[in-house]
């Protein structure tokens, strides 16, 4: 009786599958990336870019995270330490059993983006969902136009996915990468400044271009203002929302904004869609 649901279990959408963390990578002082596999070495499920997973640290708690990457036999999630639960996640070692259920939510509009140039903008841990889409576009390179990637971190050591941002992506064909840090540091000779002003400084052109904008709420607000100033339409700016979630299936109630549920109807919205919702984000 499960309609259009692609969760790991056949029946019960609230039941996690027991999985194992096979690798823990320290991305920054407060962000770790976990590579997750089922106990028999398979991929827990196949998410679309932008979808979410409910990750359960058995006995401690669970929370919703975006899935930042996937391979043949694994998915990856990057988690930033922000409180008691994420502190506990950061204690995990490879081999740790966890529960995982999902994927939840809608996804980035990979069909609508076809044939378009895409400007990816990420701030802080907000690069995690963006990365799932960047990886998808690179895997389906012929379907998409020019890719611009603008990423802002607090300082060099806070840059997530350093290999991708600093080495791999700049080498990709027809791809431009712009990295900025909020504060200067001795080990950083790149751009220094906040994301919104960097957007204006580069002066991206709106023609034929869609934007994917993810980051802390203040960056989304100011970044969106910068984009509008450059002539981008609200319909062409795509972002993701984060609210407290528990069930992931649009039933437990708390992640609603108006009549929409972030876990089910989101987390991906265009700025134009957000304008239609009550101001309670």
């Amino acid at each position, binding site marked *: 009786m499960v309609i259009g649901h692609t969760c790991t279990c056949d029946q019960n959408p609230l039941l996690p599958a027991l999985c194992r963390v096979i690798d823990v990578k320290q991305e920054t002082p407060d962000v770790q990336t976990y590579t997750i596999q089922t106990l028999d070495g398979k991929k827990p499920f196949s998410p679309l870019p932008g979808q979410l997973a409910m990750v359960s640290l058995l006995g401690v*708690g669970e929370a919703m995270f975006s899935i930042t990457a996937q391979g043949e036999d694994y998915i990856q999630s990057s988690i930033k330490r922000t*409180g008691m*639960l994420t502190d506990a996640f950061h204690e995990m070692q490879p081999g740790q059993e966890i529960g995982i259920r999902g994927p939840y939510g809608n996804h980035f509009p990979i069909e609508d983006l076809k044939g378009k140039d895409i400007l990816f903008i990420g701030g802080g841990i907000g690069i995690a969902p963006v990365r799932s889409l960047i990886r998808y576009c690179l895997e389906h390179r012929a379907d998409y136009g020019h890719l611009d990637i603008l990423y802002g971190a607090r300082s060099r050591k806070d840059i997530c996915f350093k290999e991708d941002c600093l080495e791999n992506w700049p080498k990709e064909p027809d791809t431009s990468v712009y990295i900025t840090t909020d504060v200067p540091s001795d080990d950083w000779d790149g751009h220094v400044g906040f994301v919104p002003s960097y957007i204006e400084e580069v002066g991206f052109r709106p023609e034929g271009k869609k934007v994917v904008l993810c980051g802390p709420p203040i960056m989304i607000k100011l970044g969106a203002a910068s984009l509008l100033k450059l002539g981008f339409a609200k319909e062409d700016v795509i972002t993701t929302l984060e609210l407290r979630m528990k069930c992931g299936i649009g039933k437990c109630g708390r992640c609603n904004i108006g009549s929409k549920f972030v876990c089910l109807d989101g987390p991906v919205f265009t700025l134009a869609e957000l304008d239609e919702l009550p101001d309670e984000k």
Partner: protein
Amino acid sequence: MTELTQARTEERIREEAKKALASGEVRAVVGWCATRFDDRTRPFFAETAEECDLLVWNPYCINGTAKFALDDRYPDQKLALILRGCDSRAVNRMLRDKQLKRENLYLIGVVCDGKENPICEECQHKTPLVYDVLIGEPAKEQIYPERFRKIEEFEKLSPDERYAYWAAQYDKCIHCYACRNACPACNCIECYADQYRVGWQGKAADREQNQIYGLTRAFHVGDRCIECGECERVCPMHLPIMRQTRKMLKDINELFGSYEGGLSEEETPALGGFRLDDPDEFM
């Protein structure tokens, strides 16, 4: 002067409320307004002179008004409260607990005539103990001799009987926190019970969690209870909640002498104070 009639008191309340708003120092007056049922009123914030005419005074003005002052702890302007005796003790409670500042309040005291609320029979202070303006002639303080009678009766039961009684009560509890939210002694900025992430207590409304909540609250407010009875009045499941704090108060009275909470802003709660020269070396 003779005792004011109900209608005259209501008139005076409206006058004082309007005066307070007209002074420009007060942003709203908290009192009671009518509802669609004649035997019910509701807490009401009058913010205009026109709205002051909606304030009522009748036997059904039973909700406490003082706790609403906590909704804005750092107000730009004063909040005026219509106060009965119990509300004035609630104000003292919150002033003493450093949750409110006196200069942020304008207090319109009304000598209470007792309301359609069982607790009013037990009232010892019908005249507000703190106010800026008083409506009515101060009434003589009364002694309610039965204050601890129910506790005495309850103490006669065996421990097993007492446990069974409270277990049945806490099986009914729906964990709605109405008792806490109505209680003027429950004035913490953030209640321990809302800190689910810390895990002091679970959210499930089962006997275990409900009892943890009930016991913790009773001990936390026990010596600061002002006996307004709001906890019991608001309980949708009719738990005799005040019996817990009354038990604490009874013990305090027996151990430390006569004590009532909220009589003044200066009083130290019996269990909340200490003396540097305390002869007991427990510290």
